[in-house]
């Protein structure tokens, strides 16, 4: 269920005469089962190229921006995140939640589709969506097996990923970060 700033009514247009589906602000979309998408995403992860998935996220972000009526930088945090959660929900990617850990932000998806082992496909999708909203490249790094992603600058994404793989939990990883790298 989307927030108050997101109205799911009329989000999809089904043209039975032409046999096509159009999403609001996203053009034509296809309905695919996760059992079909998962192998595709896994193959992209194996190849190290998640550009297509990230592009899909960007399109979802543009859909959110269209619902916001313009840019998202000056909009309230709640309005932007509610619209983003609404779009992800109607697209079947799960329920978006965002947590503050000090200055750090941790996004998570309830009922996340299992596309690959480390949720790297979903991480690329969220990264593309949030990058479209922030007008800045954002990296979402998986930091738990339950579908939690830390929003960081792409320059520190690799280090955060290594910390997470070594067993550090969210608190430990966030504790290793400081604004501007100050001690």
């Amino acid at each position: 269920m989307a927030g108050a700033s997101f109205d799911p009514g009329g989000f999809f247009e089904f043209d039975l005469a032409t046999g096509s589906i159009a999403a609001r602000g996203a053009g034509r979309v296809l309905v695919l089962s996760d059992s079909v998408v998962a192998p595709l995403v896994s193959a992209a992860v194996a190849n190290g190229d998640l550009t297509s998935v990230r592009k899909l996220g960007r399109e979802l972000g543009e859909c959110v921006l269209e619902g916001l009526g313009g840019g998202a930088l000056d909009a309230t945090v709640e309005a932007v995140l509610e619209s983003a959660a609404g779009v992800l929900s109607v697209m079947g990617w799960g329920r978006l939640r965002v947590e503050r850990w000090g200055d750090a932000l941790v996004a998570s998806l309830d009922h996340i589709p299992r596309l690959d082992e480390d949720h790297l496909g979903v991480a690329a999708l969220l990264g593309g969506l949030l990058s479209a909203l922030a007008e800045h490249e954002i990296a979402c790094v998986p930091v738990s097996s339950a579908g939690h992603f830390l929003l960081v600058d792409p320059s520190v994404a690799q280090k955060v990923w290594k910390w997470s793989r070594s067993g550090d939990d969210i608190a430990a990883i966030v504790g290793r970060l400081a604004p501007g790298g100050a001690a």
Partner: protein
Amino acid sequence: MSAAEKVARLEAMLARVAKNRTDGPTRGAPLAAAPRAAAPLAAPPEPEVERSDEIVEETIVAGRDELMLDLSETVAEAPPSPGVPPSALVSAPRPAARPTPMERAISTELELAPPDADEDEPELEISYPEEEEPVVIEADEPSDLAQTAPLSTRSPEPVTERPPAPVAAAVEETVELAPEPIVLAVPQPSAPIARVASRPRAATFGELIQRALALRPR
């Protein structure tokens, strides 16, 4: 026995002794023993002496004479064995060392001593029980070991076995183990535990993302 009878008995004994002297072989030793035999005459008669004591006394007094007489009779009357000289019989060793009169008196006294001569001394008997039996005191029964004497005369308190500890009863009972949480009081700080220099929350999405992207490794 009256004193007169005792005196008459003693005189009869003296007469027999004198007769023996005259009838027996004449030797120096019996003659020398005569004064000794007269000694009992000088001694006053003891009224408590019974007849058995008189015989002992007579034996003691005439002991040496009888010994000499026995030897003389043995030498004179025993027929000499063929081939054995009489001197061998005389010098032959006595069959057994006969006790001296003093020894005989002592032995007689010891034999005649009443068995309960030491009645005054308490009879001490030490007995050890074959096996110590534990003293079992039932909790319901009144104890016989209750002290009734005054405190000053009481003996040390006897060591009694204590009733079994209640632990044994607890062991027999079947208790289902269940977690018992220890309730801890929640601390109530009188002042903020820590002060965080927090900035006002980001009002816009742009500011929120900007702070998150500014994070770098320490």
